[in-house]
């Protein structure tokens, strides 16, 4: 403050506005899990924020060192619990890579894997879009998205008996076969779902208030995104057309025709929250296309490779595989000593990277924008913390 004399005018530069340290605690309706963000604000303006993770750390990697390979598949479900099929597949692919070229996954199993993964992608994006609308304040689309999600979860319940943690894709193939009835259910769902995405566009994507809340907010420049290891819709929202299903096709993805939606700053700036959101909406349509093609082309045959026995003993070696999960590049680095129990498993989680970029893009935003940004990153704490 300025001098002692009572007649001196206080210099405006001496007045300090108070900074507030706000704790968006582990329990918060909008952090999509147990994420703690320490926010330093000047009123409503965010000066800096620091995410603290680790509240959902359940020692997945340590568990994999003491249970058998088949039992580890169970633990992978719980990583990104919204896209459990993808987690299963990623881990199984890493184990299968250890076998080298001699292991061939049967065709039918490959088709089933693709169907399950893409249906799961739709379910995951539905949840992402619904909860994002809810974070912004539109509560009704959340209920509509969950209505569609229920149908997908019913399909999964038919296929493997579980609605959320499937434990279905196993090393060598899949666990159970799917029959005509299930395929009919899936086709019915495909016919039903297309117009529903139009409904979400009507309610959310074109709503002026929603666009104003998400356009120009949380702009993620391309260089920052790559530097921080962001992948998936977060990277594609910034205009980078990278999708592992096209770049390094795994499984039988090279047989299907689908596009990769990319953000373009259509309503705001390139790489803002609206771009990331629209990438997810369009990805749902593309996944639908893939499922329709897969259901048409699925052959009869085995569902598990006979090379992998009941007791899975991966050969000695190390392998890193990655798949395009709903949130980005999900990688598994697997070290095997030739025993039933793996020596080391490391999971590379896309949400881990996506949330690390939060401080970079939220400086200068408002607290309400911080919510919008976290929602657009679509993180699942299960895989951030493992």
């Amino acid at each position, binding site marked *: 403050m300025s001098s002692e004399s009572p007649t001196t005018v206080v210099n405006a530069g001496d007045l300090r506005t108070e900074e*507030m340290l*706000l*704790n968006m605690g582990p329990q*918060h*309706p*909008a952090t999509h899990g147990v994420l703690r963000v320490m926010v330093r604000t000047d*009123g*409503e303006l965010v000066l800096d924020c620091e995410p603290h993770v680790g509240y959902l750390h359940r020692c997945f990697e340590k568990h994999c060192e003491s249970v058998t390979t088949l039992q580890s598949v169970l633990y992978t479900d719980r990583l990104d619990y919204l896209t459990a099929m993808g987690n299963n597949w990623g881990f199984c692919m890493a184990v299968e890579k250890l076998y080298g070229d001699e292991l061939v996954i049967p065709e039918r199993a490959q088709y089933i894997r693709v169907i399950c993964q893409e249906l799961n992608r739709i379910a995951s994006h539905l949840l992402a879009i619904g909860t994002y*609308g*809810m*974070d*912004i*304040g*539109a*509560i*009704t689309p959340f*209920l*509509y998205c969950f*209505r569609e999600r229920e149908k997908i979860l019913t399909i999964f319940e038919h296929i493997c008996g579980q609605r959320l943690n499937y434990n279905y894709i196993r090393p060598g193939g899949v666990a159970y076969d799917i029959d005509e009835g299930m395929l009919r259910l899936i086709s019915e769902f495909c016919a039903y779902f297309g117009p529903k995405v*139009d409904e979400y*566009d*009507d*309610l*959310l*994507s*074109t*709503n*002026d*208030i*929603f666009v*104003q*809340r998400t356009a120009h907010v949380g702009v993620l420049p391309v260089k920052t995104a790559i530097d921080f290891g962001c992948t998936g819709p977060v990277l594609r929202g910034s205009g980078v*057309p990278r999708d592992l299903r096209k770049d390094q096709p795994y499984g039988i993805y090279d047989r299907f025709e689908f*596009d*990769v*939606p*990319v*953000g*373009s700053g*259509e309503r705001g700036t390139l790489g803002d929250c609206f771009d990331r959101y*629209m990438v997810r909406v*369009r990805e749902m*349509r593309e996944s639908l296309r893939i499922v329709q093609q897969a259901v048409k082309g699925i052959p009869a045959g085995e569902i598990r490779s006979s090379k992998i026995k009941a007791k899975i003993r991966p050969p000695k070696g190390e392998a890193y595989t990655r798949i395009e999960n709903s949130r980005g590049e999900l990688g598994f680095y697997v070290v095997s000593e030739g025993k039933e129990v793996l020596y080391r498993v490391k999971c590379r989680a896309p949400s881990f990277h996506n949330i690390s970029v939060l401080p970079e893009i939220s400086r200068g935003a*408002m*607290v*309400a*924008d911080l*919510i919008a940004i976290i929602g657009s990153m679509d993180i699942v704490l299960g895989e951030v913390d493992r």
Partner: protein
Amino acid sequence: MDTQTLVQWVLGENPGFWPQLIGVVAAWALPITVWVSLVGLISIWLERKISAHIQCRLGPMEVGPHGALQTIADGVKLLAKEDIIPDGADRFLFALAPILAFAGTFVSFAVIPFGPDLIIADLDAGLYFLAAVGSLEAIGVIAAGWASNNKWSLFGSVRAATQVVSYEIPMGLAFVTVAVVAGTLSITGIVEQQSGMIWNWYLFRNPVMPIAFISYYIASLAECKRAPFDLPEAESELVSGFHTEYSGMRFAIFFLAEYAAMYVVSALASVMFLGGWYTGIAPLDRAVAESGLWANALGALVIITKSFALIFVQMWLRWTLPRIRLDQMMTLCLKVMVPIGMFTLVIAALWQALVPEGAALDAAGHPAHPVVGSVTGMLVFVFLIVGGSMWVRSTIRATTSFKTANYRA
């Protein structure tokens, strides 16, 4: 029969000052308390059912037919809850805040009419009284956020302060527009001029009245802190905003205050723009006008129906639209709604002064057939509805361009 005579009839001729004062207050307070509780009951049930049906689900179905008694069960539950005051909270303010918030709305009921004779205080400056007393709620909300000793509640209350105080300007401008057209601030005076057929309603009185109505309605949404203006209680950001730390009966009072405020602003909209207790069918109004009882019964039914219709629209909007951000809300208020409010005020005043509505005057000395105004008003109203819908449809249909663009080759 007014309260004075009622009180004297109960207490006898020439009661003392204090018995008379208490008697008068009780005679006012009791019916309002009953009515406010009833409004709260019905509104909360309506909210839950409307939101449920919009969201493809059923809502309360267990307690009573279609969950009609659910709110009573919830009320009993809230009464029975433990009263928690957070550590470090300012106990006096914490206890006072809900009362302040409720008091503002409660007192407004004194000038809300239910029928030609069913108004507790027919003040000459009823509109002015409402504008003044309604602001008391803002103090309660701010006190609640401050007293909770919780940064998130503070956020909510600061947002509420900004919002409620700012949106009183467009609301006040709408009030003044109506006062200019009516020539009086008295509630009954305003309604009396809307007697007759439906085109006599102030909504169509001159070309800018529909605009003033919409401006008032939006401002009233912001005053009641309803979506899309529910930043102060933004559920997904601030848990519950300024009333996060409130539980049990204290929370029930806030809750009741919100729904009572919704009723007050809707009733005010009906009174100012939609003809008050007149049905808009002149022969029907004339037929019941002779019998005081039937006039009041019909009037009460009409005004309550109109108010609840507007409440329904408020709820409909809440479950459709997302939440608007603080700076966008302030931009909307100061850069859009205040200019519109001033525009409507100026045009309405000029219209009053310059447009001749014929020499015929009705019994009260007001223009009997404001033909020019009604016709232009109705045209503007229809134009706004139709044009607005077409514009909204055009933005939605633009999604076809989303479907094919922006894909990687």
